């Protein structure tokens, strides 16, 4: 038992931090978020060609580095810390994970390779308007047609859906309900029958889109894995894996809110003292640190479990629980730390000029992704109270 980073993992984290501190400055973030694309393609290239981040946890036979989810999460934490604008989350944490979990070996080799190399971006679309982020919420439908399927319906909240090169679409057989009838389809985003529209968002550092499938035709070969195999459980796994990634970003976001706030309070003088010397400020900062550290523990633990889940380890059974524990806690922590950060910045905290407001918006936006904290708590409550107890399994 060793719940600490290896030296290699520490190096990966430190390298990521150093790179992003230079590459994802406040100015760079503000420039990127103002574009329709939402990121700097040149930086995206550098990330793939110099940092190899897209490849971290992908298998070596698909051009990946074969590292673990812990390394991925350590990198995501830094991306959250520096608010990196990029299609990394959509491409790697959603699309690549979907391929890893549900595609056939051949599909993985064909489709993961361009993702691992950074050549293509991708995302996963499964949600429609509403508050349900579970796999069973899929509402876009498929019907069998000659040589393939026809998809109809509208997705919403699709991360980078307006810009991704490839889309993995979750759809259910017309008339099916619940966990039944769900399949995943991979299509190029320029396929006829797809309409994509970027949605304006309060948090401008991560773009979301609506995607409309209007009699979208896809061939049988577009189906991930065996076309006869239900995909709901895989989709659920993919959502949990992505949820853990969001939690990791939230840790970085919280940490930076703490760090920048401490730095500000050490400089700002009122009544002849730095405001860092006031107990009211110190105790808020202490509460922030408590949450940052606890959030980090939750995200790292969930990363270990995700690694187990992807490698078939026995602890992988804990995936849903670990994801919900991490998301419930890290969402609240990020909201608390960034909101308190604004408060301790005082007047400048609510100016556009200072970065703390961007962290606050990011925290608020990521809180909603893949289910709000209350939804994850209810999911845990169902495990604890409605089924044979997991309480004893501390």
């Amino acid at each position, binding site marked *: 038992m060793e719940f600490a980073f290896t030296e290699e993992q520490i190096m990966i984290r430190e390298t990521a931090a150093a790179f992003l501190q230079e590459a994802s400055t406040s100015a760079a973030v503000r420039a990127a978020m103002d574009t329709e694309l939402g990121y700097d393609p040149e930086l995206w290239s550098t990330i793939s060609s110099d940092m190899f981040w897209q490849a971290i946890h992908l298998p070596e036979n698909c051009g990946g580095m074969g590292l673990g989810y812990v390394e991925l999460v350590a990198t995501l934490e830094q991306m959250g810390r520096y608010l990196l604008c990029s299609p990394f989350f959509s491409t790697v944490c959603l699309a690549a994970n979907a391929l890893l979990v549900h595609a056939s070996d051949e599909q993985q080799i064909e489709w993961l390779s361009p993702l691992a190399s950074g050549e293509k971006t991708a995302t996963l679309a499964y949600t429609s308007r509403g508050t349900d982020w579970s796999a069973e919420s899929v509402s876009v439908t498929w019907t069998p047609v000659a040589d393939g399927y026809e998809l109809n319906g509208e997705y919403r909240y699709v991360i980078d859906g307006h810009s991704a090169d490839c889309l993995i679409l979750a759809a259910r057989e017309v008339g099916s309900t619940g966990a039944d009838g769900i399949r995943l389809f991979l299509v190029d985003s320029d396929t006829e029958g797809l309409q994509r529209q970027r949605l*304006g968002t309060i948090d401008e550092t991560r773009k979301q889109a609506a995607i409309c499938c209007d009699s979208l035709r896809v061939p049988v070969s577009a189906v991930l894995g065996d076309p006869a195999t239900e995909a709901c459980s895989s989709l659920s796994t993919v959502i949990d894996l992505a949820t853990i990634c969001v939690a990791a970003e939230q840790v970085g976001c919280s940490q930076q809110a703490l760090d920048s706030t401490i730095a500000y309070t050490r400089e700002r*003088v009122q009544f002849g003292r730095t405001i860092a010397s006031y107990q009211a400020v110190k105790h808020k900062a202490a509460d922030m640190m408590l949450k940052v550290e606890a959030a980090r523990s939750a995200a790292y633990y969930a990363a270990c479990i995700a690694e187990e889940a992807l490698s078939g380890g026995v602890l992988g059974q804990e995936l849903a629980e670990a994801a919900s524990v991490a998301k419930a806690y890290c969402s609240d922590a990020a909201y608390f730390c960034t909101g308190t950060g604004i408060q301790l910045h005082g007047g400048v905290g*609510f*100016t556009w000029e200072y970065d703390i407001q961007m962290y606050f918006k990011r925290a608020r936006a990521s809180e*909603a992704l893949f289910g709000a904290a209350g939804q994850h708590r209810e999911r845990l409550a169902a495990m604890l109270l409605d089924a044979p107890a997991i309480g004893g399994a501390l």
Partner: protein
Amino acid sequence: MKLEFSAADEAFREEVAGWMAENLVGEFAPIRFRGGPGDEHMYVEERIAWEQRLAAGGWTCIGWPEECGGRGASIEQQVIFAEEYARAGGPGRMGHIGEGLTGPTLIAFGNEDQQARFLPGIRAGKEFWCQGYSEPSAGSDLANVKTKARFDEERGVWLINGQKVWTSLAQDADWCFVIARTDPDSVAHKGLGFFLIRMDQPGIEVRPIRQITGTSEFNEVFFDDAECGAGDIVGAPGDGWKVAMGLLGFERGVSTLGQQMGFQNELNAVIAAAKDNGAAADPLIRQRIADAHVGLKIMRYNSLRMLSGGGDGSLQPEATIYKLYWASWRRNLGKLAMDVLGPEAEMLEGQGYELGPLQTLFLFSRADTIYGGTNQIQRNIIAERALGMPREPKGN
């Protein structure tokens, strides 16, 4: 204790409501419920026109004495006016600083000449004011003013140099009242003066501050040898702090009930959204909506107590809780609004960074707990002034 208003007051309420219903229509329809906190930069022209419509109806400055152009309205009537104004969706008042701050200050501390020159323009909705209190290093520490005022004997005017910040409506104001240091060697609240300064002059530059909302209602105001007439200092040089503190005292309870009607409008919007999208069935949301309702009801009861308190209008110790209470309440309401909206909370309509009303509420409410004394400063005030606990030591 009695909760009912008198028959005369109820008749007054009907009069106000009737006037609002008749007048806040047509050209003014678009500004209903607009121009409030977080939205003060919007519809400025229309709101100026509205101010003059109010004036024509005799509805500006109703709390001022009759000899100053007001109605000498009772506290009850002022409360009723504020409530009915807000209930009808009356827009954020362009003249509120002149009416609520400049006017009462001049009536209390100004000379006859100043009263004669400034009150009518305010009363008529033709001259607008902004306030120059805070500075970059004088936020919570309000007395740490660095802006300087020097009397130029030759030209017979005061020359003002320095910078103010968080000045709302500065772009649209005709005049600004400013606290500046008349004695350059003074510190803290000594050696300050209270100046009335025309905004439209070369020595003044206004730079909007872009806020978390993407919009700008606060500004920085730079004074570079800005001129202030010799007759435009209120009180004597050195009296500035006394005048300024008196002025803060005018931010008394009356306006709070109108403010609360605005909060009620916001809570109603949250409730409507919850009913609309089904969040009203979520037990957790239900708890929080009920809690917001409880909080707002009690805010009203608190204000009624405050207004019914000391007959001399002095603030009771319990009035120190008001700012902390409402700011925290509204911040929580902002978060609740977003949670009611769910994932749609994130979505902007239209092009550009245009927030909807609940989104503005959410983001701008983070400023509520900061401006006008942060929650931390408010807790100091409660602990020290109302509970008599030891003062926070100052640094050197």
